[in-house]
């Protein structure tokens, strides 16, 4: 007993160190899985007030950029509208479908907290369950893919950014339809890596890369970026560097896209897995 006490007295600092470091490492290993970190979620509510103020300043400073983007989008929408009005004003047209076939719902949200300089980046949106934002919805910026919602509270939601080592997305080459898997290698926030495109496919620099919609999260054909360079690695596949169209350092407003038929699709798929 006495020996034990002596031992404890002698190494008490080392013991405290190992204990505290153990707690910390435990938190790192278990808590980084975002959905499981309950403690974090409740604390986020506290820190979100601070983040909101920072982000409102940043939004103000970026107003010019935002305005140009919005006007660009306006022009696009106006063009589309023009086409639709034209088709409606034709005297004869056949109605092929009477039931509304809407599959995706869109809503816009503002980013209140964002990071692009870590290895596992997340961003926080100012809309949550009350506004209809749910887990596994897609997030896009005006130009391209931004991330996927991983958790949502009453009024806020957290999305896993494309700039996250855990992010995987099924994408395809627009020119020939071959699909592969997109991930981020943690190097540069402007580039992501596209794997699993077989080597017999002809690809060029500047080819567009878009989403496939296989995962029932993103709609088909959302643009991700363009091929910047590629190399042949190992046996069969290319390793393609994709220049992302979304600028993650200037992300302010995003669209959240929900798939109304996701549960249906998942259910059907589940019965075969």
């Amino acid at each position, binding site marked *: 007993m006495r020996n034990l006490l002596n031992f404890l007295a002698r190494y008490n600092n080392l013991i405290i160190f190992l204990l505290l*470091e153990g707690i910390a490492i435990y938190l*790192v290993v278990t808590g980084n899985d975002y959905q499981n970190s309950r403690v974090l979620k409740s604390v986020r509510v506290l820190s979100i007030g601070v983040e909101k103020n920072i982000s409102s300043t940043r939004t103000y400073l970026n107003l010019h950029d935002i305005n140009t983007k919005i006007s660009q989008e306006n022009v696009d929408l106006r063009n589309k509208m023009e086409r639709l009005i034209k088709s409606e004003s034709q005297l004869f047209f056949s109605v092929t479908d009477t039931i509304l076939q809407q599959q995706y719902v869109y809503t816009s949200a503002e980013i209140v907290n964002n990071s692009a300089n870590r290895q596992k980046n997340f961003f926080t949106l100012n809309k949550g369950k009350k506004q209809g934002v749910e887990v596994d919805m897609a997030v896009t910026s005006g130009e391209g893919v931004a991330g996927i919602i991983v958790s949502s509270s009453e009024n806020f939601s957290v999305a896993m950014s494309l700039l996250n080592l855990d992010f995987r997305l099924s994408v395809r080459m627009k020119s020939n339809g071959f699909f592969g898997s997109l991930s981020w290698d943690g190097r*540069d926030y402007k580039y992501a890596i596209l794997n699993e495109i077989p080597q017999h496919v002809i690809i060029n620099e500047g080819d567009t890369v878009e989403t496939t919609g296989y995962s029932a999260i993103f709609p088909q054909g959302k643009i991700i970026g363009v091929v910047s360079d590629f190399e042949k690695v190992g046996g069969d596949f290319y390793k393609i560097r994709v220049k992302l169209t979304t600028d993650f350092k200037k992300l302010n407003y995003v669209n959240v896209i929900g798939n109304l038929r996701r549960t249906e699709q998942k259910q059907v798929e589940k019965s075969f897995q």
Partner: protein
Amino acid sequence: MINSIIRYTIIFIILILLQLLLFNNIQFSGFVNPYVYIMFILLLPVEISPWLLLLISFFTGLTIDFFISTPGLHTAATVLTGFLRPYILRLISPRDGYDPGATPSMEIYGFRWFLFYTVFIVLIHHFSLFFLEVFRFTDFFRTFLRVLFSSLFSVIFILLIEYYRRDR
């Protein structure tokens, strides 16, 4: 005693706010991000008992973790730093040792000493932090480069803050 507790609380709050509001928003090319809050552990009195130092380091890291939502990451790094700090102080102790009740500052021990001290502590902290973040040793040199660059900026900022603090 009470006085110094109040003083350190103020320093703590200022450094945490600086880190959250200013330095977290500095991102040079996604490669460099200075973590200046570590200066708090740097400034604690030389003769603080190791167990208290460990506890303070733990809570400093925990506070930062809560605000940038990285569970455990900064805590692990600061606890390690707090554990190694006494050894580093012994390693670079001036010839006549430390005065009782002294705090590590540029004013007392000079620029050179403070620079070495800062570089050691910041390197330990950043090294453990960045490698825990990626959690793998592939791309070792890239992560190592991140450590070096971020440390460089952290050290510069800490020296600037210390310089300013001395003038007041």
